[in-house]
């Protein structure tokens, strides 16, 4: 396997020279199917980081510019926490790092954070924005997408190599709630009924190719993409169905008539439940390998083909893969996934390397990160080539890739005081100032509100059966069991089953929080994925709503703090914004900060302040908890004076004030 990995490395090297094979409809085996993440030694990490810094320094030098100084420990600490685990450090964490005398403490902290549960939470938010992860999937489906969302979390927790992860999603088959499908089928389910949109989204997210215009007409600004090309691509994944193809019966078939009769004669409650099963079980999932053929639309308007004509799959760029005979095949998705996810694909690696670069460095080497069509202005082409190579070398291990980037000096330069022109390429003389994302803000507030925020798991992602707003039959059967049972039944048997099920659910009083937590903890022990803990005494007395963004419903409800601050509604790719509006300010001055922090003596920041005696010490604690630094002399004087004048109310003022500073909101 090692030899194979090395070979893959060389492959990529060749590819970078824009050398591509194009050949007939033929494939070698899936190379590297069984490959594992690669751990670089600390020396190798340093070496790679140094090489990256050389690219940045050379480009700055060529412009007669110099990078800023190294960030202070405080600045680094806050930045690296926000970058890797998506929140600021709390008081204990800040002290532990700032007091550490180890000269290698920065690299040490990077390693620690990458391996903690906060990393999974943060990267889940990241991918939820890109993949538009919703609890209930799109179109008209009322399906619960929980297994898919859990699959994404698990893939991050397992640090699944990116190429394998993408391939799994593109080729997964089975029911959403089928244990063996592991939830990966949710990728197609997300765009239920919209296979063309799904293809457009896939090409945009993973290859930076914008095809959505070509769904309906030739691309207006890119001559190379015609409407026909879009259908060539869409052919690969065409013809997918749900696990039980309820719509397959002909309108007048005997089965359909029988189904109709049973349905019409059933009591309303049973009908509703059958519909529910249709959405959640029978129609939720993917069957079919992709037909490799597709009919052109009825309104096809160009002369090179007829409306409705069937065309075979053909790749748009890179290595040519095609279904030239235009006869249905059963492995279109495998072919497509293989073409998409190898390092030979000229765009696949480029996009993820730049996407992760931006995640770490705040700005991409080209932007937007998912558009390579319009001749992107790449700020550092050689660096990008280096990063692509690095991605291949680490076998698409995203964590290892980021470990290198976090260890660069480029990441650790001081914050750039200049306002950056977002229309021009960036030279990276220092970290660009950015507003925290909605999730970073929420989770950072949480850090000073509850203890061990990364370990507290809620009930939103549990696979239990919901009925009338309660979790029922907990401990007896969950959605996975329901899938097995319902899929085995047809016709009258199903209706009888539903009737019994309804009775059982109705008579169940619903599970308590504690019971579910207990179930969950045993399940987690089984899966071995999440590092979180069941809700326990540590969080007694804290609102159940005080969970990390990744444990709240995805997306959060429209009026939630997260949405006010720009969390994506998860309808469009990267729909999150950091734009400001007045409702944000209101929740900072009157809402969330008051409700859960200043107004709550249980808030961690107040508990930490209570553990010291002197006003000066308390002020230090608040500053470290919220701004990750100690106060200046002037600031100390100001707040001590306020304590002298207003007594204990001054500590409420202090905490409120620190949250209402620009310094809290912006990442340096």
């Amino acid at each position, binding site marked *: 396997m090692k030899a194979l990995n090395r070979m893959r490395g060389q492959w990529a090297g060749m590819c970078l020279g824009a050398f591509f094979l194009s050949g007939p409809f033929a494939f070698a085996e899936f190379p590297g199917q069984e490959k594992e993440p690669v751990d670089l030694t600390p020396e190798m990490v340093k070496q790679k980081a140094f090489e990256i810094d050389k690219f940045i320094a050379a480009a700055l030098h060529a412009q007669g510019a110099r990078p800023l100084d190294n960030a202070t420990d405080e600045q680094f600490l806050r930045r690296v926490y926000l970058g890797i685990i998506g929140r600021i450090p709390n008081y204990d964490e800040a002290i532990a790092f700032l007091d550490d005398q180890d000269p290698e403490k920065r690299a040490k902290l990077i390693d620690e954070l990458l391996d903690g549960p906060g990393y999974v939470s943060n990267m889940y938010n990241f991918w939820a924005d890109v993949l538009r992860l919703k609890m209930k999937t799109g179109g008209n489906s009322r399906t619960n997408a929980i297994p898919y969302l859990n699959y994404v979390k698990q893939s991050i927790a397992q640090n699944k190599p990116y190429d394998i992860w993408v391939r799994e999603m593109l080729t997964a088959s089975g029911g959403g709630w089928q244990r063996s499908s592991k939830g990966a089928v949710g990728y197609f389910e997300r765009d239920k009924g919209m296979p063309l949109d799904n293809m457009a989204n896939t090409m945009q997210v993973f290859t930076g190719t914008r095809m959505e215009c070509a769904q309906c007409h030739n691309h207006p600004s890119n001559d190379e993409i015609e409407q026909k090309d879009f259908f060539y691509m869409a052919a690969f994944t065409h013809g997918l169905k749900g696990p039980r193809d309820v719509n397959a019966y002909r309108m007048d078939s005997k089965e359909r008539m029988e189904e109709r009769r049973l349905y019409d004669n059933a009591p309303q409650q049973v009908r509703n439940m059958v519909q529910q099963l249709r959405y959640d079980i029978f129609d939720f999932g993917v069957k079919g390998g992709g037909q490799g053929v597709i009919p052109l639309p009825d309104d096809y308007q160009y002369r090179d083909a007829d409306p409705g004509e069937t065309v075979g799959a053909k790749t748009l760029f890179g290595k040519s893969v095609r279904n030239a005979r235009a006869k249905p095949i059963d492995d279109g998705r495998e072919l497509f996934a293989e073409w998409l996810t190898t390092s030979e694909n000229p765009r696949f690696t480029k996009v993820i390397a730049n996407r992760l670069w931006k995640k770490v460095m705040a700005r991409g080497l080209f932007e937007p990160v998912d558009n390579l069509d319009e001749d992107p202005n790449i700020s550092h082409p050689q660096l990008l080539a280096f990063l692509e190579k690095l991605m291949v070398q680490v076998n698409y291990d995203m964590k290892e890739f980021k470990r290198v980037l976090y260890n660069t000096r480029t990441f650790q330069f001081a914050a750039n005081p200049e306002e950056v022109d977002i229309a021009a390429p960036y030279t990276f003389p220092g970290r660009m100032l950015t507003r925290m994302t909605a999730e970073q803000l929420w989770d950072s507030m949480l850090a000073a509100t509850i203890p061990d925020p990364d370990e507290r798991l809620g009930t939103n992602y549990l696979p239990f059966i919901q009925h009338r707003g309660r979790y029922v039959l907990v401990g007896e059967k969950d959605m996975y069991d329901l899938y097995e049972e319902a899929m085995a039944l047809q016709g009258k048997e199903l209706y009888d089953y539903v009737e019994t099920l309804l009775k059982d659910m109705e008579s169940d009083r619903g599970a308590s929080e504690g019971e579910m937590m207990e179930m969950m903890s045993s399940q987690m022990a089984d899966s071995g994925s999440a590092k979180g803990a069941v809700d326990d005494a540590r969080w007694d007395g804290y609102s159940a709503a005080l969970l990390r963004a990744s444990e709240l419903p995805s997306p959060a409800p429209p009026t939630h703090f997260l949405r006010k601050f720009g969390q994506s509604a998860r309808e*469009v790719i990267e729909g999150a914004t950091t734009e400001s509006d*007045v409702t944000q300010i209101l929740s900072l001055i009157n809402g969330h900060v008051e409700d859960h922090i200043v107004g709550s003596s249980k808030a961690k920041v107040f508990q930490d302040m209570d553990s010291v005696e002197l006003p000066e010490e308390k002020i230090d604690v608040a500053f470290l908890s919220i701004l990750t630094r100690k106060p200046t002399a002037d600031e100390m004087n100001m707040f001590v004076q306020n304590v002298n004048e207003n007594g204990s109310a001054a500590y409420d003022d202090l905490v409120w004030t620190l949250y209402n500073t620009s310094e809290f909101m912006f990442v340096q």
Partner: protein
Amino acid sequence: MFNKVDEWSRRNFMVNSARSFLGVSILPMLAKDADAAGSMQKTFVPKRPKAAKSVIFLNMNGGMSHLDTFDPKDKSDYMGETKPIQTNADDVRLGHWLPKMAEHGDKIVPVNSMSTLQGAHRQGQYMLHRSYAPRGTIVHPVLGSWVLRLSGKRNSTIPGFVHVGSRDGTSSSGYLGPKFAAVPVGSAGAGIEDSTLAGGVSESDFDRRLRLAESMNKRFKEQFDHKQVQGYENLYRDAIKLMKAEDLKAFDISAEPADVVAEYGPTRFGQGCLLARRLIEHDVRFVVVNMGGWDTHYDNFTRMEEQCAELDAGFSALLNDLDRRGLLDETVVALGTEFGRTPKIVPHHQDGRDHYPKAFTHVLAGGGIQGGQVYGRTNSTGEEVDDKPVSPQSFNATIAHALGLPLDLEIFSPTGRPFTVADGAKPLTSIF
């Protein structure tokens, strides 16, 4: 909280807060705003003698089926379960799911010849609200932001542009900046959340805290003199102004009598329409009310029944109420969607309908528009536009025209690119 303190101390508190926090008093600031509005007035000459003042834009998110709503046909194989019904205007017919709207046919103009190239939701919604196709290099402002930019607020104490319901990137002010962005209201009943002081916080507490925050911010601002940082500081000023605004009660739909609440329907959309009417009454310039759920790929007709019941109650009550209060003439009510749906029914999707950008329907009412007529025409199956095609840009130009805004006035983005309110499109002047 404010009802506990008397008017004098309340105003005094706000003035003090604003002065201490921003280094200015709130009163001259207001005067300055009035000036700004005045100079704005000079930049445009109303094209019509009696220009409308406000807009309520009903956003049908997901792609509303035109055949089942405002452009019904007689071919039953295309219509499925939907039947055409006559309205109180001879020329206007609707799908039978909209019986209450049929009593207001004389107030509306279905624009049945809408057509666009945008067949995906995001792109379609983007075009619908911004009149430009999405590009990787710039974010265009939505129509409400344009309207604020070109004609200013009518009521300086509360927001001029409010977005009710889920917003999904359809409410951004783009390159015009946060000053012209919509203030979101998640659900109508919630009003603007957190717009009063938290319990236990007195005016003097609040004032003291603002002073402390201001001192803290000085240092940061010296270090990072950035627009976005400044933008946040300005928003604190806006937030304080909002908290003291007498007209904040516009956001409280619980003040409405029960029969009015009932008329609009107990739905998110219905209550959103009710809130929109209250806001318009208090001189808010532009209100978007979002209604989702129109993406009926599956089981179109079951969904139509649910969707249209919600739309029918809300839309008809809104027209009725505005008319009753004499506000319809000065308020443009527009209903738009990103595209229509395939007139051909998709049987293997439980009789669904897919995206159809080639021909679809929007609706206009009020604001000096002559209701009871239909603009444009599709063919007998609703698949082709036969007469007077209308682009989303033209539709937006028509709204801007009703407000008397200058359609050709160029506004420059920060990078120096020129844009106009509706990308140079012509308004449908014949319907006024």
